[in-house]
């Protein structure tokens, strides 16, 4: 290879070489970090909720007019019956919230009564005995609630259920030995006993504030008897979701019209819930992707431009090289090698820059440390981009005729 003479020739074209190398460095630094952020967002997107998502939809129901808690509880139980009777419906439950909803109830969990600091935070899901079957959760230890354990709960009641179920993530956190069933834990309202452990149930929010307890959930045997914002969660037989979603609000209104189910988002399939929950993550990933593509395109254009300029400028010396015995292949390789050298220089600096940017992001936005894979990926992408961009002008250079050497200047 003719690395040495190419390097010495480049030394005579410092400005162009430096500009392109810097452009490559900057692009590399940003692309590495952007790819990393994209990957993190996509990984976040891929976190499971634990639900049988394709067959689940939720209805947000609000009551109109004043009712006592007892009346509310009765009306909700009637609604559950109405929904359960719909064709294609497999199961129905009601809760104060559901995974990915964006908000709900979370609370501190302690292991002893006099503990000052919470052991962990946890999502509190209010549930009846149909909850785990409706959501499609897997009970991995202990038992489900019994129907008679479910009690109505008013806003002013204290949260003090005698029994609860917890997720495996929470059980592992509280009782690493794996013997959570039968143990007592302390919620804000007092002690309670764990009777069952479910495999997986995600928190009510995927935003940062809920990250610390993302899969640590407590399921309490309560029916929330308030007039605002109770959710009916419906699981349908496979393929029946759309039909059931259309039929459900009609049936509810037919049974009791004194209610509000928002036209827009009163009935949501879980697919819609998921899309909404991750709107920002997806937006961020797309934005980062666009930034990458734009930067790469600009850099490629820069390389094409500079190389084309150089090829034009060096027509004569290309002709001379051909006259002195260079084959077309030699000329092509010359420009490819030249680009590779510039790119390697740029990439080296770009890697340092990428790490610097990442460290800044880590301290500023609590991002994770950039892994080596992304640096490598960035380097490979930019080297390939460079070689690709230089190919067309280099081909043009290789077609310069040796007779060009004899043409007067």
């Amino acid at each position, binding site marked *: 290879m003719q690395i040495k003479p190419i390097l010495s020739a480049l030394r005579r074209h410092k400005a162009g070489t430096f500009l392109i190398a810097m452009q490559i460095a900057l692009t590399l630094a940003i692309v590495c970090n952007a790819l990393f952020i994209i990957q993190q967002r996509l990984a976040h997107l891929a976190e499971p909720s634990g639900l049988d998502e394709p067959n689940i939809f939720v209805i947000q129901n609000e009551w109109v007019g004043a009712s006592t808690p007892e009346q509310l509880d009765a009306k909700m139980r009637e609604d559950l019956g109405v929904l359960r009777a719909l064709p294609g419906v497999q199961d129905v439950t009601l809760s104060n919230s559901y995974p990915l909803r964006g908000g709900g109830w979370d609370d501190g969990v302690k292991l002893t009564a006099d503990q000052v600091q919470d052991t962990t935070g946890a999502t509190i899901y209010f549930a009846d005995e149909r909850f785990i079957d409706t959501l499609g959760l897997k009970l991995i230890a202990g038992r489900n609630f019994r129907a008679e354990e479910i009690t109505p709960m008013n806003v002013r009641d204290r949260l003090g259920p005698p029994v609860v179920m917890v997720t495996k993530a929470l059980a592992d956190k509280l009782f690493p030995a794996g013997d959570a069933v039968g143990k007592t834990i302390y919620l804000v309202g007092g002690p309670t006993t764990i009777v069952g452990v479910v495999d997986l149930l995600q928190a009510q929010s995927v935003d940062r504030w809920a990250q610390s307890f993302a899969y640590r959930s407590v399921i309490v045997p309560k029916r929330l008897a308030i007039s605002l914002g109770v959710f009916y969660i419906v699981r349908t037989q496979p393929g029946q979701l759309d039909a059931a979603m259309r039929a459900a609000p009609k049936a509810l209104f037919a049974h009791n019209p004194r209610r509000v189910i928002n036209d827009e988002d009163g009935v949501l399939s879980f697919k819609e819930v998921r899309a909404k929950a991750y709107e920002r993550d997806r937006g961020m990933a797309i934005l980062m992707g666009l930034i990458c593509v734009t930067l790469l395109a600009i850099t490629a254009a820069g390389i094409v431009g500079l190389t084309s300029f150089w090829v034009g400028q060096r027509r004569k010396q290309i002709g001379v090289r051909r006259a002195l*015995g260079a084959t077309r292949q030699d000329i092509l390789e010359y420009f490819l090698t030249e680009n590779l050298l510039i790119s390697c220089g740029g990439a080296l600096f770009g890697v340092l820059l990428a790490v610097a940017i990442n460290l800044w992001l880590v301290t500023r936005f609590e991002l994770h440390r950039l892994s080596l894979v992304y640096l490598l990926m960035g380097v490979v992408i930019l080297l390939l981009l460079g070689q690709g961009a230089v190919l067309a002008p280099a081909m043009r250079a290789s077609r310069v005729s040796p007779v060009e050497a004899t043409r007067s200047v």
Partner: protein
Amino acid sequence: MLKMTHLSKVYRTEVVETYALRDFNINVSEGEFVAVTGPSGSGKTTFLTIAGLLETFTGGQYHLDGVEVSNLNDNERSRIRNEKIGFIFQAFNLIPDLNVFDNVEVPLRYRGMKAPERKERIMNALERVGLASRSKHYPAELSGGQQQRVAIARALAGSPRLLLADEPTGNLDTQMARGVMELLEEIHREGATIVMVTHDPELAARAQRNVHIIDGQVVDLAEDPRFHQAVHAARANSPA
């Protein structure tokens, strides 16, 4: 060494066809020193570019070292240029981005020669042209005569059997031209075949044989009155 028979070269543009060479016949033997003269536009450079495999021709035959060159592909032509032919151009044609050493090295690298051999050949060639001490200089830092000597060193380093020179002294003053000519004669004495295009009748006279080209054809000097006119005109123009 070099034999062209009924060779023709046509340059076609959209409007005209120019016969740069027509029914062109020449035979240069191994070890000859031939000077090519002729009026401007007569086809001298065209002849050299075809002889040096820089360009293809339209009709006829050209045997170089016994090989019919129209059958060669681009890579084979490159290899022959690299190994058998040395070029010296009127405009020197050094690569401005490379220093003297690297310039002389260019054809040797294309030959795939190992570094120690390259170095030895380069230093030998530069010593012969008297520029060994300038090997780190860039072309722009040298005089015209020095640049042409570097170009000769570059042609020499590969030990070509055929040296093609297109007005090698055209851009040089008499003093420098003489130096270059002496160098060529020395190279010739060592066995190289040289074909040199020149406008300078004095230099032409120092060659073993003169070939005169008019309108793309080799003409017999003694018979053609145009030659005498051309020589006359050239004498009148020449500063010497």
